[in-house]
């Protein structure tokens, strides 16, 4: 009686969704119950992958307008499935859709919500406890919920994805989606897609640069480094504010919060508001010309020196490393 909401992005099941299925499957195991996933506009290969991630049953919903139109319609769809399945724990990933849909569902179902969980829950009778980050990553808190139905949205990149051999039973959604009930009209869509880069919240490798780069004309080497690592680019707030880089690259307390495996910070001082959005990264590399830059205190590896000479050398070094790997 675990339900997991999933999404497809650019022809693939989102990594965050596979994580959510893994997570749901683990909770099903812990509570000795079943696990159903919701798949929206998924093809056979994608359904197969969701099965491998641990979904025993998948309810497929096929409706091209459902994503990106009105989170009210999505919430109503999930609500109908949750009721039909008798779901007691509903898992989302804590991403743009999850943040819009899970809380509405919580209000509708009177279901306690933990938004941005980072570990597996402990379940005791009707009580569920799980940790989440608070104070922008400066601490974690153990949340407890006791409502009959419970919702957890899982912070992306909290667990590595594991695929097994399971095959899911597929059933079609039999409920009702009233598209004409929406008052929202979509006028225009713009993609942030730059050269097929992985979106920041999902990226495992991130190359980020700050005001130390002096001007937007110097970002070539940053992009080259990101390209060599197949990393996603990010920046500090002033860089986005000055329009050196697009605002969706801005990470930190007021920007995107990320927790990649590797965060390389170049010419960024490491202000507390910047750290708040990146200190969950597994490994942090700092390149800075000021030995007293606060970022060194929050780094795993540091290089003291001029980014303008170090970054090109790092690019060469990575090229060499890749050549040796092959």
């Amino acid at each position, binding site marked *: 009686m675990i339900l997991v909401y999933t999404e497809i992005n650019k022809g693939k099941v989102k990594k965050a969704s596979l994580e959510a299925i893994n997570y749901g499957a683990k909770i099903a195991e812990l509570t000795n119950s079943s696990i159903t996933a919701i798949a929206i506009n998924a093809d056979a290969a994608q359904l197969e992958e969701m099965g491998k991630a641990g979904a025993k049953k998948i309810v497929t919903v096929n409706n091209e307008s459902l994503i990106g139109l009105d*989170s009210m319609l999505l919430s109503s769809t999930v609500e109908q499935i949750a009721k039909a399945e008798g779901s007691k724990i509903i898992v989302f990933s804590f991403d743009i859709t999850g943040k819009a849909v899970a809380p*509405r569902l919580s209000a509708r179902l009177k*279901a306690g919500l933990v938004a941005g969980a980072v570990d597996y829950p402990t379940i005791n009778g009707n009580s569920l406890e799980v940790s989440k980050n608070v*104070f922008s990553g400066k601490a974690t808190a153990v949340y*407890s919920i006791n409502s009959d139905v419970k919702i957890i949205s899982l912070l992306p990149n909290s667990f590595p994805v594991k695929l097994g051999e399971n095959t899911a039973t597929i059933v079609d959604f039999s409920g009702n989606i009233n598209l004409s009930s929406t008052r929202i009209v979509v006028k225009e869509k713009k993609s942030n897609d730059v050269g097929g880069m992985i979106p920041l919240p999902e990226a495992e490798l991130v190359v980020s640069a700050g005001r130390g780069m002096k001007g937007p004309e110097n970002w070539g080497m940053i992009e080259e480094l990101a390209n060599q690592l197949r990393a996603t680019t990010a920046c500090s707030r002033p860089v986005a504010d000055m329009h050196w880089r697009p605002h969706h690259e801005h990470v930190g307390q007021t920007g995107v919060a990320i927790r990649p495996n590797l965060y390389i910070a170049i010419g960024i001082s490491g202000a507390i508001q910047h750290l708040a959005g990146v200190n*969950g990264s597994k490994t942090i590399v700092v390149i800075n010309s000021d030995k007293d830059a606060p970022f060194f205190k929050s780094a795993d590896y540091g290089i003291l020196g001029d980014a303008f000479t170090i970054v090109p050398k790092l690019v060469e070094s990575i090229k060499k490393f890749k050549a040796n790997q092959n």
Partner: protein
Amino acid sequence: MALFSKFANQKFNTMKILVPISNVPDTTTKIAFTNGDTEFNNAGVQFIINPYDEWYALVRALELKEAGKAEKVTVIHVGLADSDATIRKAFALGVDDGVRIDNEGPDAFFVAEQIALFAKENNYDLIMTGKETISYNGSSVGSMIAGFMDLPLISLATKFDLEGNKATIEHDVDGGTQVVECDLPLVVSCAKGMAEQRIPNMKGIMGARTKPLTVVAATGNEKLSNIKSYTLSAGRTTCKMIDENNIDELVHLLHTEAKVI
């Protein structure tokens, strides 16, 4: 053009905006806990209006009012009396009045239900929240308010404009942004881009003292979550310094030690 905006003024001058604001520790606060790590230690902590609520939701709401597109901007906060100083900061920015629902948070379900009840009873057409509090990082309250009121939610709005009853909003979606139109009433959660931070002027600061702050009791006390304990995140203890002439060493360590490439 002038005629048109005058017309808009007349027709929609009863439009009221409600801005839920949260009271959070200043961004530079060193976080600490007390009482066996079960409570946030607020000794010596400077509290501020949650930056998203202030810079984006509130300032944009005030701009709409100044442009004659709304009649009134009210802030609402669910919290105890120690938040009053923060609510008065919003007054100094130019808000008309404030309401505090006298009960402690931070349970998002409870907070949102209180706000939704108030908004419904008092006919607010537009509710502008911040995208997230920097304290509990729930990103939940806006969407929950929309759920309780059965209204559309436009989340992560980066631009917002009104022409009469019709809102045009640019907002972040997965992998990009989109522009949507939606008639009021509705709930928006506001993110960077909506407006620029404002510094209160002398007139605002003087006026803040006399603006009405109404304190009302909560309706019911249904909370669905509570916090059992806190743990400070472990900081990084050592930074391995690598010579700038030995960058191969860094790549080697990232591969063999950190195992991230």
